[in-house]
């Protein structure tokens, strides 16, 4: 377990220090949310109605667009090869990297969401619910995106390949994330059902993502 935590700490340190770009995702999230009123108009009632959807879409894009660097930097400096040859199971190593990426890139989105909710005229109680759904749902996005990041690195291609491959797979997360958020706001629907499914999707991705990424790396050479 020490190797796991060592890898986790290394990735976290790299992310928060110069050149890591951990804050970039939050900045991107802020810009996306800021752009929406310019596109649809500043009417507060409308913004409040589609607020959860905007926050979820922003978080989805922000967490996926930061992913293509997850393994790319490690490949460039050779540490990816060391990881592949290390004694610890590759799935665990990939899981540690993904967890570090989630802590450094996705967790700030969850924390930033309530602040951005003010722009969208969302009530504090509903905002807490949206933050909880983001907390439960963003692991699914990170660990699904992991597969795309692994494929992009083994193919030595970056850019739009990861979002093109992974975004269709995130449809269930988006559906249940927004549904749970709206349930918390309108209280006409039960919150528990979509929220439990959202948690289930996250748990499943935590298993499937590292497994598939490890297969991609093992078959790369």
């Amino acid at each position, binding site marked *: 377990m020490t190797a796991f935590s060592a890898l986790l700490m290394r990735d976290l340190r790299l992310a928060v220090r110069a050149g890591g770009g951990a804050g970039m995702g939050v900045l991107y999230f802020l810009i996306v949310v800021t752009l929406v009123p310019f596109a649809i108009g500043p009417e507060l009632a409308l913004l409040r109605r589609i607020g959860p959807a905007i926050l979820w879409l922003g978080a989805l894009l922000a967490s996926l667009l930061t992913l293509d660097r997850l393994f790319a930097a490690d490949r460039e400096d050779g540490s990816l090869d060391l990881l592949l040859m290390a004694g610890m199971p590759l799935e665990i190593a990939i899981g540690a990297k993904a967890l570090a990426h989630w802590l450094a890139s996705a967790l700030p989105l969850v924390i930033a969401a309530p602040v951005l909710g003010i722009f969208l005229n969302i009530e504090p109680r509903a905002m807490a619910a949206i933050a909880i759904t983001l907390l439960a749902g963003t692991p699914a996005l990170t660990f699904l995106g992991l*597969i795309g990041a*692994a*494929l992009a690195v*083994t*193919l030595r*291609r970056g850019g739009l*390949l990861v979002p*093109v*491959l992974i*975004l*269709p*797979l995130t*449809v*269930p997360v988006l*559906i*249940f994330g927004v*549904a749970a958020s709206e349930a918390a706001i309108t209280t006409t*629907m039960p919150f528990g059902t979509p929220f439990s499914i959202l948690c289930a*999707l996250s748990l499943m991705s935590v298993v*499937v993502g590292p497994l*598939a990424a490890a*297969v*991609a790396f093992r*078959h*790369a050479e």
Partner: protein
Amino acid sequence: MDKIGSPQAAPGTSKRPLSVGDLANPSRFLSIVEPLLPWLAGATVLLMALGLNQVLAAPDDYQQGATVKIMYLHVPSAWLGMLCWGIMSIAALGTLVWRHPLADVAAKTAAPIGAAFTLICLITGSLWGRPTWGTYWVWDARLTSVLILFLLYLGVIALWRTVEDPSRAARAAAVFTLVGALNLPIIKFSVDWWNTLHQPASIFRAGGPTIAPSLLLPLVIMAIAFTLLFITLHLAAMRNEILRRRLRTLRLMQAQSAEH
């Protein structure tokens, strides 16, 4: 250099009886598929003609009129759009487990065909929606699921086209195909849930629309005809891909010998 590309892989003309395993050899595969293709194509044309004839003879729906005939193109292409991902998943297992180059070829050539059938399904569904629902597109659960399936097909094709080395692309595409196969039922379930949340299912009755036998027979014939069409297209595309790879290998060898 991948094994499938080398013309030297051609086996000797031994006289032992053929078995299913022989199909795994690209040269044997070609020697079996080549004579089979005209027969398959002929059978497809005949069955398609018979099916279309039956479709024209089938009675119109008492509510939808003649537009119900779109169903005979729409439903088989939807089936094949899904079947094709299944075939790609089996081929993906062949690629990852046995590292068999013919499985790579099968997976690569199936993707555009599957995308084409899915697109036909979407277009016919949209054309069918115009007279029955009054609009070309509704975010109906089935249409939405098929649209996402189409996007996944485009993703796989994009993956194949990004990478020049075919065997490297094959393994990456295989991983993505299997992840997609795992996710497709979840996407289907989610979209159904989302759709019932947003709009009640008014078009399709629960348990599916009951279909009269006079409409069912042409549908079955068309489904078989479409499946034959798929098999023909897929085998022909696999043959073309094998020949294309051999050509690539020959060019590479030529370039290599020119260097010395």
